[in-house]
């Protein structure tokens, strides 16, 4: 397999995605199948000097640099999972720092 279960675990962490341990071998097999398939691109030469393709208008139009209200029909609190006094609520910062230590 070109992608190991350990690599899947590492990538899932980078992607902020929890993955069940028992699913790691299946995910590694599926990712290997995909990665092996897309690896055929490396066997094709050329393209290094081709004009890069960028879709869309040649020049991005800039918006006026002014503060304007968000064109929202509802309040932020209507769709936020947890919201109080103008802030989105998340677990405590202390807990966040603990999580960082856990990652190291």
């Amino acid at each position, binding site marked *: 397999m070109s*992608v190991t279960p350990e*690599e*899947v675990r590492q*990538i*899932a*962490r*980078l*992607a*902020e*995605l*929890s*993955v069940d341990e028992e699913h790691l071998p299946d*995910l590694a097999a*599926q*990712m290997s*199948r*995909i*990665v092996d*398939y*897309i*690896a*055929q*691109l*490396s066997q*094709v030469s*050329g*393209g*290094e000097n*081709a*004009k*890069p*393709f*960028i*879709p*869309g*208008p040649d020049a*991005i*139009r800039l*918006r006026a640099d002014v503060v304007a209200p968000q*064109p*929202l*029909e*509802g*309040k*932020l609190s*209507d*769709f*936020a*999972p*947890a919201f109080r006094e103008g802030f*989105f609520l*998340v*677990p405590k910062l202390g*807990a*966040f720092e*603990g*999580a*960082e230590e*856990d*990652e190291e």
Partner: protein
Amino acid sequence: MTEVEALASAKATATRLGKAKRLNALLTPTTVVRKSLLAQAKEAHPSGVLYGMPVALKDNICTLEFPTTCGSKLLEAYQSPYEATVVTKLKDAGALIAGKANLDEFAMGSSTEHSGFGRVLNPVDRTRVPGGSSGGSAALVGAGAVPAALGSETGGSVRQPAAFCGVVGIKPTYGRVSRYGLVAFGSSLDQIGVLGRSVHDAARVLSVISGRDPRDSTCENRDPLRLPTVPERLEGFVIGIPKEYFPVDLNPGVRRACDRAIRALKDLGAAVRDVSLPHTPYAIPTYYVIAPAEASSNLARFDGVRYGNRADGVTTLAELYRQTRGTGFGPEVQRRILVGTYVLSSGYYDAYYKKAQQMRALLAQDFRNVFDRGVDLIFTPTTPTTAFKAGERTKDPVSMYLADCFTAPANLTGVPAMSLPIGRVKGLPVGGQFIGQPFLEDDMIEAAYALERAIDGTEEA
């Protein structure tokens, strides 16, 4: 159409949507749609060019009237605080929004088997998939519940289900239609498209939703598309037939249907010429680097902090992110996020992402080479096979991805393309595809009008 007729249209649509319920194509409850349609019919603009016309929307297009779920448990019951520009344009033209259509979660899939709210059935054969990811939109049009629906394309998600369900699907040029309010998947590829029961229905909806939008910087500063007249003949058109789209293992029935369509194009007076798009075989591997890479970035916003559902019982912010995303996203979305993160990670970027961008440039060069040599349009099959059985490809992601091998090149290179029914094989619809030059959708639609009139798209090939 009078107000009385618009109300009758609303009632009839609600009834038809009710009858199509078994397809699982509509996510909005039919009672809710019925009530909304009747209210909209009373308030619609009678002078609008789409007055009284019901149009269903793929559920990754933001609306104020209905939730926008993207087919994901993570956004179940999410109510957008703004609506997409295309929705405003449809309403201004007098159209009636006929609810939200089921889709592969976050538009990632080719069979609409990856929705968080169950798979969609093909209206022609319920044991088969309707294609995807706009499978709900295609199934509703194919079942005759609505004359048109909006979908979105990243790799063929309008044209492929259109082909599988026997309807018309148009993907306009990148930048032709505003994407403001379309939930992003692959931002350099995404484009809103239209599914219709006929070329005319699809084209007139496209005409309404096209044109400039100051809220989308990737939308070109152009007037809306002007509809061409229905031509009697196609004299003066040069149509290229690329050999790479007719491989030896192409389904024989699909080949027969295409051969018949090509004969019809010649009979209509078009000059048909063999052409080559040599990098076509690399479109799918290129697509499955670029699209997941962009998806992994775009879907980073779904973290349980600002909107959507969040995981319960977590004590740290890192856990909140990971549990929300791990339990909220389905398996296909997770797979693509992982692949996208992998190809962008240090050590692999040059081997995959940079190489894919180089290949994308070569694919674009292929099309320029053909069009620069006097070819107006390219004609191909839309898909290599007819609709496959439900469950047939879910175990092997790569075999599922190959369902888009003839559609993804147009997304990678931004050119317009459309599918229309050109026959049936063992009762299953076959789609023929026109690929056009950037912003010349009118040529493509003109040829499709003529071909649609010249052949019976429901006849066995």
